[in-house]
C-alpha cells in the first residue's frame, strides 16, 4: 500500500485522457458515448466490454482524475454500479452484448428489485412469484424501497420460481423491463420528504427466458454478487442515465459545474467534514475547543475510511477476493454518517432547529442529518453486516438457523399482525 507507482501511473493516464477529451460543450449523451469507447468510465470492466481491465484499486485514482479535471463522471444508476459488474460475473456473452452497451453509454437506468415488504434483511424469503408460461415467465408480487424506479428502464429482479424447496434454492435472477402494462411504480417518500424510492407492483408482468442471469433456481448466488458490489459501491456526482430523467441532452459542463441540481439518494456531500468546517467558520466556532475536537474526530473517521478503501483495493490486487471486508467498510460509513450528523447539528446549534437554504451551510448539514439513518439500513443493515463479519471474517459459530432447510412454503415471513401469511 505504501508503494503506489502503478496507481499514480493509472491516475496520470486517466488525467491525460480526460484533459484531452473532456469538453463541457458535449451533451451528456455525447460525453458518455465517448467515455464508453475509451474505457475510462468503467476502468475495472474488461477491455472488450467498455473497460480497461484494471484492478479495483485503480478506480479511486481514476475518480480523482475526473474530479481534478472537473469532468462529468460516468453514468451511475444501480445498473452501471451493480448490474454491469453482476452481468460480467454471471451472464452469458449474448446477455452482455445485449445489455452492457446501453449501460456503458448511460442510455439506460436500472433499478434493483430485491427488497419486499416482508423480506428485507431476509432477502431469501422473498415472495414475488415468477411462473413459467411458454418461453418466458409471468411475474406477480410487490417490491419496495426500489430506489430510482421512477426513472428506470429495467430492473434486476429476484423472484421465486420454486416455493417447494428451501428458500435459498428457489430464487431466480431476471432482468425485467419496466415499460410494460404489468409493472406499476408508486412513489414512496423518505423521511426528508424527498422522493428517492418507490413501491413497485407486478401484475402478470412478463419476462422472457433469455433474461435469466445465471441458473434457473440459482438466483441467490447472483443476488449475493450484486449485494457484495453494493457494499463497495462508490460513485462520482453525475447526471442520471436513461431517457426518463431527461439529462442526456443537457450540456455536460452545466451538470459537472452543479448548475443543474440533481436529486441523489443519501448524503450528496463527498466530505462532510468540509461542509461542517465551513459552517463552523461562518458561525465563528473554529476556535471553540469542543467543536475543534469533534471536527477532528470526524476528519479522522473520514480519513481512516478512505485509507481502508485503498488498503482493501490493494488486497484485491494482491489476489484476495473482496468479500466480507466490505461489511466492515459499510459499518464505518454508517458510523461516519452518524458522527457527521451529530457534529454537524451541534455546530449549527440553534440554526439546526431550522430547515432550508437560509441557514448557515445552505441546509447541507440538515441534509446530512436526515439522510444518515439510510446509511445504516440501505444495502444491508449494520446488524446484518456485523453478523457477516462475525461469521465470515472472524469465523465465529453461526447462530442456530431454523429457516435454512425447510421448504419455503412452511416459513413465517414478514410482519405478523399486519400481514396474513398468504404465501405463494
Amino acid at each position, binding site marked *: 500500500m505504501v508503494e503506489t507507482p502503478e496507481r499514480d501511473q493509472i491516475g496520470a493516464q486517466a488525467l491525460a485522457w480526460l484533459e484531452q477529451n473532456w469538453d463541457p460543450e458535449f451533451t451528456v449523451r455525447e460525453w458518455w458515448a465517448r467515455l464508453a469507447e475509451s474505457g475510462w468510465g468503467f476502468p475495472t470492466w474488461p477491455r472488450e466490454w467498455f473497460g480497461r481491465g484494471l484492478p479495483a484499486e485503480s478506480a479511486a485514482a481514476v475518480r480523482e482524475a475526473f474530479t481534478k479535471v472537473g469532468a462529468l463522471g460516468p453514468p451511475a444508476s444501480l445498473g452501471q454500479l451493480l448490474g454491469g459488474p453482476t452481468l460480467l460475473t454471471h451472464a452469458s456473452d449474448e446477455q452482455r452484448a445485449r445489455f452492457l452497451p446501453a449501460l456503458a453509454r448511460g442510455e439506460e437506468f436500472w433499478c434493483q428489485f430485491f427488497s419486499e415488504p416482508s423480506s428485507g434483511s431476509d432477502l431469501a424469503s422473498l415472495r414475488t412469484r415468477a411462473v413459467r408460461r411458454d418461453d418466458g415467465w409471468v411475474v406477480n408480487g410487490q417490491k419496495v424501497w426500489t430506489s430510482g424506479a421512477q426513472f428506470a428502464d429495467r430492473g434486476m429482479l429476484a423472484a421465486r420460481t420454486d416455493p417447494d424447496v428451501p428458500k435459498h434454492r428457489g430464487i431466480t435472477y431476471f432482468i425485467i423491463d419496466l415499460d410494460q402494462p404489468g409493472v406499476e411504480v408508486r412513489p414512496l417518500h423518505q*423521511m426528508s420528504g424527498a422522493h428517492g424510492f418507490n413501491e413497485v407492483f407486478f401484475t402478470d408482468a412478463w419476462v422472457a427466458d433469455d433474461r435469466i442471469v445465471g441458473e434457473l433456481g440459482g438466483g441467490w448466488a447472483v443476488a449475493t454478487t450484486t449485494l457484495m458490489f453494493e457494499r463497495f459501491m462508490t460513485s462520482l456526482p453525475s447526471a442520471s442515465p436513461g431517457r426518463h430523467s431527461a439529462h442526456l441532452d443537457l450540456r455536460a459542463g452545466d451538470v459537472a459545474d452543479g448548475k443543474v441540481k440533481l436529486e441523489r439518494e443519501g448524503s450528496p456531500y463527498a466530505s462532510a467534514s468540509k461542509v461542517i468546517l465551513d459552517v463552523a467558520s461562518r458561525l465563528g466556532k473554529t476556535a471553540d475547543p469542543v467543536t475543534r475536537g469533534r471536527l477532528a474526530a470526524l476528519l479522522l473517521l473520514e480519513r481512516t475510511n478512505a485509507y481502508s478503501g485503498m488498503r482493501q483495493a490493494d488486497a484485491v490486487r494482491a489476489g484476495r477476493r473482496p468479500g466480507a471486508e466490505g461489511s466492515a467498510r459499510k459499518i464505518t460509513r454508517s458510523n461516519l454518517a452518524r458522527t457527521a450528523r451529530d457534529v454537524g*447539528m451541534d455546530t449549527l446549534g*440553534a440554526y*439546526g*432547529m431550522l430547515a432550508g437554504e437560509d441557514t448557515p451551510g445552505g441546509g447541507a448539514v440538515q441534509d446530512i442529518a*436526515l439522510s444518515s439513518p439510510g446509511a445504516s*439500513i440501505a444495502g444491508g443493515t449494520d446488524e446484518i453486516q456485523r453478523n457477516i463479519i462475525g461469521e465470515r471474517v472472524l469465523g465465529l459459530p453461526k*447462530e442456530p438457523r*431454523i429457516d435454512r432447510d425447510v421448504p419455503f412454503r412452511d416459513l413465517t*415471513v414478514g410482519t405478523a399482525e399486519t400481514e396474513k401469511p398468504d404465501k405463494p
Partner: protein
Amino acid sequence: MELVFTEEQEELRRTLRDFCADKAPSSEVRRLMEATEGYDPAVWSQMADQLGLQSLAIPEQYGGAGFGFVELAIVLEEMGAALLPSPYFASAVLAATALLTCSDEAAKKDLLPGIAAGTTIGTLAFTEENGRWDADGIGLAARRGDGGWVLDGTKMFVLDGHVADLVLVVARTAAGLSLFAVEGGAAGLTRTPLPTLDQTRKLARLDFAGVPARLVGADGEGGAILAGTLDRAAVALAAEQLGGAQRVLDMSVEYAKVRYQFGRPIGSFQAIKHKCADMLVEVESARSAVYYAAWAVAEDSSELPVVASLAKAYCSDAYFHAAAENIQIHGGIGFTWEHDAHLYFKRAKSSQLFLGDSSYHREQLAQRVGI
C-alpha cells in the same frame, strides 16, 4: 421528597393520554405541521376549558389551578409522547414561568389570568441571530421613548412567536437585562415564521422597530428572571423528551415482536433485543432525572440549577439515541415519510438543540457543581 405519584397525578396522566390519543393522532399531527399556525385553536380551547391545562401550574390568585410543577411535568411528558402540536410550551411554560419568576405583582395580575385561561398565548423571546442560549448573547436594546419603553432589534428562534398574543422580550437597558411585555400585534413588530426541521414545533423571527413595550419587574431584573425561567424550562423540556423517548421505545418493542425475518421475530436477535434493553436503561435513567428535577422545581430547591442542566443534557441524548435506534429497528419502513418514526427523530434532534445542546449543558453542570 416524593418520587412516586399520587393517585390524583396518575389520573391526570391517564386523562392526558386519552386526550392526546383523541386529539393528536398521527393524521392530526401531520395536518397541523403543514399549517403555518401549527396548532388547532379548537383543541387549544378544549385544553383550557375542559382540562384546565394552561392554568395547571399557575397559582390561584392569578387565575390558575394552583397545582405544582410535578403535574406540569406529567402533562408535558404525555404531550411529548404524542407530539401534540400546540403553543403549550411557549405559553404555559416559558411565558408563565417568566412572569411567575419576576417581582412584578401588577404584571402577574394583568397577564397571568389570560395565559391561565388559554385566551392569551404567551411566549418568551430571548435568543438572537448569534444563536446563543445564555444571557451574554442578548443585544436587543430597550430605550426610554416619549411615552415609555421602546424596543429595537431582532429575536430569533422564538417558539410560536408568530401566533403569540403576548411576547415577553429580554432586552438590554443601561441597568443590564430587563424583561418587557409586547403585544403580538404591536406596531413596528414584524413576525416571520421560520421553516423548521421539526415541523411540529414552530419558530419565528421577530424584528422590532421602535416597538412600544411594558417593563415587567424592575429595570435590570431580566437576568435573574431569565436564569430562573431557563432552569425551569430545561426541566420542562426534559419531561417532554422523556415522554417522546418512552414512546419510541414502545414503538420499537412492539415492532420487534411482530416483524419476522429469518423465520423469527427480529426481537429474538440479540442485536435488536440489546438495543431495546439499552434504550430502556436510558429511558429509566431519564425518568429518574426528570422526576428528581421536577421535585426540585416544585420544592424550590437550591439544587435546581444543577439538576436542570443535568436533566436537559441527559434526556436530550437519551431521546435522540432512542429516536435514531427506533428507525434502525424498523429498517426501511422507519426511513419513510409515511412512518411516524421520523417525526420523533426530528423532534428529538431539535429539542436536543433547543435551550442549548448537551455540550453546553454539561459545561453548565460542571460550572454549577464547582468543577
